[in-house]
């Protein structure tokens, strides 16, 4: 995920969408997506899924991604945007890669021997030898401690919110009763 500013134009945002429901990369699919406004994306098939790499000019990453999802949905080919290709669960190595620091430094942040302390705890796989951290939580901590630019932290939140929304929509389509049941059960206990 990358944003480059090109004044006086709107900034250009790089991101990728993973799209299901499109069996083959036919001329019909290509033309429909091109005509729907996806001429700023490169289409490829990866693991049988349509993968769309965008470089889109828009006021914000949020505007760019939402616009692209709507373009795909309006292409009339029954394409289903599954997610933005960004994973919120990360290893210490991935955290290091994303902020261009060493893995050793990240471990030092985690155990408090470097930095201001209070590094967020892992999100899951707590009992494994390989716990995972939520990038949103980590990037928030990094921004709070001036170790990451605020817009990068915000973009992590935007991508995660969009992916959560897409997943929730999909789950509601598959098992609406389950989603309602869980919502009722959790609301009762609040």
């Amino acid at each position, binding site marked *: 995920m990358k944003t480059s500013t090109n004044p006086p134009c709107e900034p250009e945002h790089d991101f990728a969408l993973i799209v299901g429901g499109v069996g083959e990369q036919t001329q019909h699919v290509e033309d429909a997506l091109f005509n729907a406004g996806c001429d*700023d994306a490169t289409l490829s098939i990866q693991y049988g899924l349509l993968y769309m790499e965008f470089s889109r000019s828009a006021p914000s990453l949020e505007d760019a991604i939402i616009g692209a999802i709507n373009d795909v949905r309006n292409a009339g080919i029954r394409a289903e945007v599954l997610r933005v290709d960004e994973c919120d669960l990360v290893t210490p190595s991935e955290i290091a890669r994303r902020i261009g620091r060493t893995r050793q430094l990240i471990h030092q942040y985690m155990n408090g021997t470097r930095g201001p302390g209070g590094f967020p705890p892992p999100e899951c796989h707590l009992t494994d030898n390989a716990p995972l951290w939520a990038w949103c939580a980590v990037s928030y901590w990094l921004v709070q401690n001036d170790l990451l630019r605020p817009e990068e932290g915000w973009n992590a939140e935007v991508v995660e919110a969009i992916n959560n929304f897409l997943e929730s929509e999909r789950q509601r389509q598959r098992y609406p009763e389950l989603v309602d049941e869980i919502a009722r059960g959790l609301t009762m206990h609040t």
Partner: protein
Amino acid sequence: MSRSRHPKPAIEKAVQYAEQLGWRVELSGGHAWGRLFCPFSSRSGCIISVWSTPRNADNHARQIRKVIDSCPHRSDSDDEQEGDTES
């Protein structure tokens, strides 16, 4: 080179880069100039659509190279062929 060249030089270079890595080029119609097929030419192989007139030719060329570089089959194709021989 027997195929026709892509009219945008940056994209033509990206297509040539794909060919150097063993990708196959098939020309097509409509908005797509052609498609690139990775060396792992089975149903799960990678396919890239190359636009004739993308919104930004330089961005499209950069994206094509990125997909080529991230192709998961680059080092697998030899293993797959070995596996086929054994079975």
